[in-house]
């Protein structure tokens, strides 16, 4: 097995045949998820740990139900958790077959009980890489290359856990690693602002969102702000993802919540802990009741991500906005 998404030749062919024109790509999130994601797809997940993860898109994916997905990311937190939690509850409704990853946990918010549950029971294939490996793999895919060379990690057990090939550099005669491109079927990305054509502005870290979007056959983008094209085009160097890389644009305020989004809101740590607490019993061998209750309340019983956000008290949402406005002070 070399390619788990599209091969480089297939990725080029798909892009060549795609309608890359500048057209209105706004649609409902439900529609985008149903239109572009299929069972068995390799999904490239944007953001980094709990920063700008495509949380709203994962909720909609859970509601829709998909089977045998491959998830590709460098470091994920909530996006992985929401998909994995659905699998913990009912594998016939939602399942992940394989993950290609560098890190799945929550830094100061601790380990992911969902990842531990699936991994320690042997329920998913794992392929471990480093953050730079996964970033370089998406970048190779975005550049239209079959691989990129890297100097890390090169030694230890990471290279033997995956498809890295170590060669002798023909110029230096020293060892160097080649990591194969990742060209996912669908990229799921949350950005700070976008226009209706899909030109995206990302504040704070780009993470590897531009690379994942350019590498994938299709890209679904949710955005905190939907702005006129003229506003974005007046600062073209701010555009991190250009419109031809994007297939669907959905305006979803708080789309990365309870994670953080630069200039908009800081982490809701309480809710992250509450979500994890609901999964912890199953990870420890206990019952699914708490996790099922969480999914019923926050995902299955509602129709849109807007309904999820409405479950938070306005003063809590405003407090998380205020915390971010302290991190990043600027007049409106």
């Amino acid at each position, binding site marked *: 097995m070399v390619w788990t998404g599209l091969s480089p030749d297939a990725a080029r062919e798909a892009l060549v045949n795609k309608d890359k024109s500048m057209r209105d790509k706004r649609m409902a999130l439900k529609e985008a998820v149903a239109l572009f994601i299929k069972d068995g797809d390799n999904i490239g997940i944007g953001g980094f740990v709990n920063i700008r993860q495509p949380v709203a898109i994962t909720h909609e994916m859970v509601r829709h139900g998909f089977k045998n997905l491959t998830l590709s990311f460098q470091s994920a937190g909530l996006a992985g958790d929401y998909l994995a939690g659905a699998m913990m509850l009912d594998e016939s409704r939602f399942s992940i077959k394989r993950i290609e990853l560098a890190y799945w946990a929550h830094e100061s918010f601790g380990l992911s009980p969902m990842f531990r549950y699936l991994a320690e029971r042997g329920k998913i294939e794992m392929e471990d890489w*480093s953050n730079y490996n996964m970033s370089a793999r998406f970048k190779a895919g975005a550049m239209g290359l079959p691989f990129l060379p890297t100097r890390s990690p090169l030694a230890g057990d990471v290279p033997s856990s995956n498809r890295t090939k170590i060669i002798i550099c023909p110029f230096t005669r020293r060892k160097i690693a080649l990591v194969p491109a990742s060209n996912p079927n669908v990229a799921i990305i949350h950005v700070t602002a976008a226009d209706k054509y899909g030109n995206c502005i990302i504040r704070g870290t780009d993470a590897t969102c531009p690379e994942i979007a350019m590498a994938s056959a299709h890209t679904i983008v949710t955005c905190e702000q939907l702005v006129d094209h003229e506003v974005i085009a007046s600062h073209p160097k701010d555009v991190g993802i250009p419109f031809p890389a994007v297939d669907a644009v959905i305006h979803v305020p708080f789309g990365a919540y309870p994670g953080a989004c630069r200039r908009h809101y800081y982490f809701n740590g309480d809710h992250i802990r509450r979500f994890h607490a609901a999964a912890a019993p199953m990870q420890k061998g206990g019952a699914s009741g708490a996790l099922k209750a969480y999914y019923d309340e926050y995902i299955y019983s509602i129709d849109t991500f807007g309904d999820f956000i409405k479950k938070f008290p306005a003063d809590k949402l405003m407090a998380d906005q205020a915390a971010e406005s302290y991190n990043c002070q600027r007049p409106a």
Partner: protein
Amino acid sequence: MTDGATYTAQEIIVVAGSKIIEDKKIVFVGTGLPMVATLLAKRTHAPGLIPVFEAGAMGPPLNAGLPISVGDSKTFTDASYVKGLNAAFEMTQRGYADFGFIGGAEVDMFGNLNSTMIGDYPGGYQKPAVRLPGSGGASDMAASCERTILIVPHDKRKFKEKLSYVTSPGHLDGTPNARYNTGLQGKGPYRLISTKGIFDFEEKTKRMRLISVFPGETVESIQAATGFELLVAADVKLFAPPTREEIRLIREEIDPNGVFVKKSS
């Protein structure tokens, strides 16, 4: 203790870590205690320290306080350069990171770290006894920062003869030029800070060597808590306990909410 401060095991790690960092150097900061140590260094002897975070920030003053993630918004405000993960690791691969500050769940005598899994590799890789988060950027920092500073809580089960899995390459098997011969760059592990003392890696054997003992510990107590034979420097030093001011900075200014440095209760 010199001026009577009480402190926790995490607090002395932070103080030791901050003292190892040199001023005006570029420090690639991993998540957790390294962030606290970096802020402490910046507010004490190393105001010109230049932090880099793997999500893409270079040189932020960190005036908005302690980041709780290496992609935290606080790392971007007033930074000198902000891109994404590829840029941060490319700069490191190029040679821009003088120090890398990384943690792990297990360490061996050559400073190799595990943060991937507990269990049997490769046989049990797809069903590990305990699944840890994975490399993240740690193996990249270990591979390409010029010198690395490791932080591992001291425990016989964590200081092991053989790791379950080598996530972040240190001095590998300790043979001469082992890192260079596998294609790695940088000099590898420079110091290790545990909850019991500070270690370097002896020049010739690349083996972990005790150079500084934290208050309350002895060479013997540390060896007893270590799963392999330690080298011991000829002139092992007693590490001075944290000062009241250092503890105040950590508790009141740098990590007042106990995000990474747990409050002793």
